[in-house]
């Protein structure tokens, strides 16, 4: 389906750990796939903030509602946190390329850091619906920054929690337990969403252990719809050529083995159209 710009009434906004869970009335929304995101206007009339904020779609019921999970962080998300049930906000959804789902009922691992877990319940349900085994690793810096543990326990075959400070689950990083999990279940696909450093590590562990990975990246986006070219990162194409791909329309989900993680935030010298010695 193609994205729609909609005015939505906030049905509820509820704290969940460090996050806020916002449910929107979205009568115009169609089918949403896991990994799709929504772009939300912030700041209101006469506001000084021009750009939308991107959030993974947590849940959605066609013709009815759409949920997001967000962390009050900078100016825009802080404003969003002050909104209440009954207030109207403007969103565009669904946006981006969602996770690619396996055709076969293979064993999969879902890995998420912090609010990166937002789209994962939807994903886990889809995978289970296709007969896949689904093991989950959820990590965060500390307990309050975990999201979705209970919900995912209700869907997945197993859920392992890691926290940097040990306040919940295993003390450590998601990658500390990932290799074992892949080995044990002979997992063939890893689905990941979270901070870029985590994604990079996950992609490597997956590759080292013979699994395919799908990573939802998070890059600063001005438009979210593919027209501005701000959200790029170096991604290797089918032809082996590295291009500065737009994470909003070519992503946010990319194959983990195709993103040049070490070169994110740079333009590799062998990228398509990169500056040549002596100018272009």
């Amino acid at each position, binding site marked *: 389906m193609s994205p729609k710009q909609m005015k939505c009434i906030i049905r509820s906004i509820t704290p969940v750990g460090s996050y806020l869970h916002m449910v929107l009335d979205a009568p115009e929304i169609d089918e949403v796939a896991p990994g799709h995101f929504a772009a939300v*206007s912030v700041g209101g009339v006469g506001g000084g903030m021009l750009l939308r904020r991107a959030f993974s779609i947590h849940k959605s019921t066609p013709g009815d509602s759409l949920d997001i999970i967000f962390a009050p962080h900078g100016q825009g998300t802080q404003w969003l946190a002050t909104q209440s049930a009954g207030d109207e906000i403007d969103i565009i959804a669904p946006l981006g390329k969602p996770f690619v789902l396996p055709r076969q009922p293979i064993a999969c691992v879902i890995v998420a850091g912090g609010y990166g877990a937002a789209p994962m319940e939807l994903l886990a349900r889809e995978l289970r619906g296709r007969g896949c085994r689904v093991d989950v690793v959820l990590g965060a810096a500390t307990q309050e920054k975990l999201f979705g543990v209970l919900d995912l326990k209700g869907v997945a075959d197993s859920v392992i929690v890691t926290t940097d400070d040990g306040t919940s689950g295993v003390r450590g990083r998601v990658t500390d337990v990932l290799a074992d999990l892949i080995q044990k279940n002979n997992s063939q696909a890893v689905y990941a969403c979270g901070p870029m450093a985590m994604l990079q590590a996950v992609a490597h562990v997956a590759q080292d252990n013979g699994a395919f990975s799908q990573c939802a990246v998070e890059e600063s986006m001005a438009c*979210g*719809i593919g*027209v501005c070219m701000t959200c790029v990162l170096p991604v290797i194409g089918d032809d082996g050529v590295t291009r*500065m791909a737009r994470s909003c329309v070519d992503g946010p989900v990319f194959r983990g083995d195709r993103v040049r993680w070490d070169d994110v*935030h740079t*333009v590799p010298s062998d990228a398509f159209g990169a500056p040549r010695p002596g100018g*272009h």
Partner: protein
Amino acid sequence: MNVDLSTSLGSLQLSAPTLTASGCAAAGKELSQFGDVSTLGAVVTKSIMLEPRSGRATPRMAETPSGMLNSIGLQGPGIESFLENDLAWLRANNVTTIVSIAGNNVEEFGELARILAKVEGVDGLEVNISCPNVESRGQVFACNPISAAQVIETVRSVWHSDAPVLAKLSPDVTDIVEIAHSVAEAGVDGVSMINTLLGMVIDVDKMKPLLGGRTGGLSGPAIRPVAVRAIYQVHAALPHLPILGMGGIRTGHDALEFIAAGASAVSIGTVVFGDPGAPWRIANELGLELQSRGYNSLSEVIGLAHQN
């Protein structure tokens, strides 16, 4: 609405007064999910260069109060791919198209114009001279009346088409009227103004400029008063030179300010990022603003603020 919103830029008739701004709507295709781009005045495409170009390192943007900075660095596929894919799509969809071109030196502008002069579907040329001249220690063409004129003369000499040639001016100059005079003498059919203002944001955690490209271009409503002033000044000095106005237009009311200051049509840029339907909405609002003030057509309002 019984207000005539049609307008023109030199020889190019436009059925609607709002266009997209270069670099803010790619080549129209993505925006077509939010409206029929063939009903816009025109799509002004992202500035295209001869060769494919990767652009600058990220971060490429920073939100600023009522504005944003960008340092895309003209990422693009190069003219060949542009013709095959982008222009072909625009033609197939009957979109009025103004192609924006950028070069690293005067010759590249000429080469681009030569190529574009030969193809169908180019309804106008916007020459983005607000980019650095690699042969002049990176000085921006539009910041120097002589190099600005050289680009335009070179383009003009190979441009054997009726489609208008517009020069896109930078506001980062001591005297924008001097630059406008210079490109007018060099033979442009009109000017587009304004491009972004040079700005910077510092990341005080990393203690370095936030953008990968260090500096970036400031756009959005923050710069609107600078754009209106620049257009007013140029229209006062060169009343017969058509102006495509841009810089922070968010509403029909804003657009009316630009028209009254002397613009014949307006481009919608940064505001599209927050509101992809803006080019259509603003055209509609502009009609209502004109109607409520008793005007019958947009054309009667062009430059009207100079009469009082």
